[in-house]
């Protein structure tokens, strides 16, 4: 269970998160939507302790991570897997080593066992025969899928996806959506997904939350959100540009 309590964060005087209260139900898929530059990635990084809030608390399974030291924080982080918006693959390692990295770091598995897991995870994201390629030899979408494979490598309890489907073709989008749902069902993990794809959002989400001007302005099941009366949310999910907004 992840609880954000009164989280505030600004960068150089620019308020990005303003009093965020958000509870993520365990074992569910929560999708966060919101404008580009609205602070979704920043919110996600708060959850895993990469960014410390200016004020407020972040409770992970009852522990406030904002007060933890590096060592304890590392223990908490071992529950997480994270896909970065730009994949953040280690460009000094080939694809196979990237996916194997968390396995080598945190398990005592033998080389061939790790190799088997890596092949399996890559196959799940639709990649074959790429283990020896370097990240720079891959397309953006391929990199994203390698990042996804890496995030899933340790079968973590909490998985953070920063725009997993952006930049993929429609068929691949669908495949990744299905992978997220399937992984969640098989492992019972808590998934938090940032997405700009409204269709896919409503397809996979158990809960949808919308971030707007540093606040959570809407949170509920897909049905509830679809039926919302909030004009900002309505406009966002109906993909309309309101003249006075631009």
């Amino acid at each position, binding site marked *: 269970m992840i609880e954000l309590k009164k989280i505030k964060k600004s960068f150089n005087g620019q308020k990005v998160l303003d009093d965020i209260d958000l509870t993520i139900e365990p074992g569910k898929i929560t999708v966060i939507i919101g404008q580009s530059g609205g602070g979704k990635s920043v919110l996600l*990084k708060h959850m*895993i302790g990469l960014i410390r809030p200016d004020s407020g608390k972040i409770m992970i399974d009852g522990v406030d991570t904002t007060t933890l030291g*590096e060592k304890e924080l590392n223990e908490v*982080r*071992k529950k997480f897997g994270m896909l970065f918006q*730009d994949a953040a693959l*280690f*460009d000094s390692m080939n694809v196979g080593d990237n996916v194997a990295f968390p396995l080598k*770091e945190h398990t005592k598995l033998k080389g061939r066992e790790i190799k088997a897991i890596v092949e399996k995870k890559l196959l799940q994201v639709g990649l074959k025969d790429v283990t020896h390629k370097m990240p720079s030899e891959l397309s953006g979408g391929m990199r994203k899928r390698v990042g996804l494979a890496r995030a899933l490598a340790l079968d973590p309890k909490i998985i953070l996806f920063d725009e997993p489907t952006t930049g993929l073709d429609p068929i691949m989008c669908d495949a990744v959506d299905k992978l997220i749902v399937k992984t969640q069902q098989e492992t019972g993990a808590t998934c938090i997904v940032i997405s700009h794809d409204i269709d896919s959002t409503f397809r996979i989400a158990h809960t949808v939350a919308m971030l707007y001007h540093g606040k959570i302005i809407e949170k509920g099941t897909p049905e509830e959100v679809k039926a919302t009366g909030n004009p900002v949310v309505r406009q966002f999910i109906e993909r309309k540009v309101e003249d006075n907004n631009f």
Partner: protein
Amino acid sequence: MLRLFEFAGRPFIYLLEEFGRILLFLLSIAAWLFRKPFRLKEILKQMEFVGTNSLVVVLITGTFTGMVLAIQSYYGFRKFGGESLVGATVALAITRELGPVFTALMVTGRAGSAMAAAIGTMRVTEQIDALYTMSVNPVQYLVVPRVVASIIMLPFLTIVSDFIGIAGGYFVGVKLLDINSGIFMARIYDLLVVDDIINGLIKSAVFGFILSLIGCYKGFYTTGGAEGVGKATTQAVVMASVTILVSDYFLTAVMF
């Protein structure tokens, strides 16, 4: 008036801040140095990068340093018939100063800059954040191996450079300028002592520490995308080179 003080004081304060940050960075390196797991594979990889991959450059600079030193000192010594001292001059200058310093400067240019660039790129492309999310401390994973490898490898590069430098001096002095080879070597044995070599090597280990510390530091705190990486790289080379030369003076003053 006040603005004048502000204007003059700003670089000074900036320098102080920078110094403080490096010190804190150093402390975290020291803390992570002794914490498990010890990344021997990474250290080895960096030893290869800093050490063996710099060998050719170091060999070339070392040889020519010794050669040019032999020519220059020969013309000086010939004025009062002291040609026999050319070998000793070359050997002393190289083992005590030029070997350690030139090797360190070459490695700074080759490996120190690469450290800043590699770590800087990892910073701006969130790879360092990714390490954190995987419960791997980037100082331990990226910085400690580079620093350890540099401290270990610099003395080895330097001793090779010392040797090849003296060999270069020998070639020019004995083969080209016709100094008697026996007297050339005898003067070296007379005047060079083991401590000259050892102190030079100790210096080079300190230089290895400096260049890797600054390279990693500049990379680790890179901001501003690809351009930032470029800046960090340049700054790392300049700052490391200057620090190496300044600290060389103090090390020499303390040691010899």
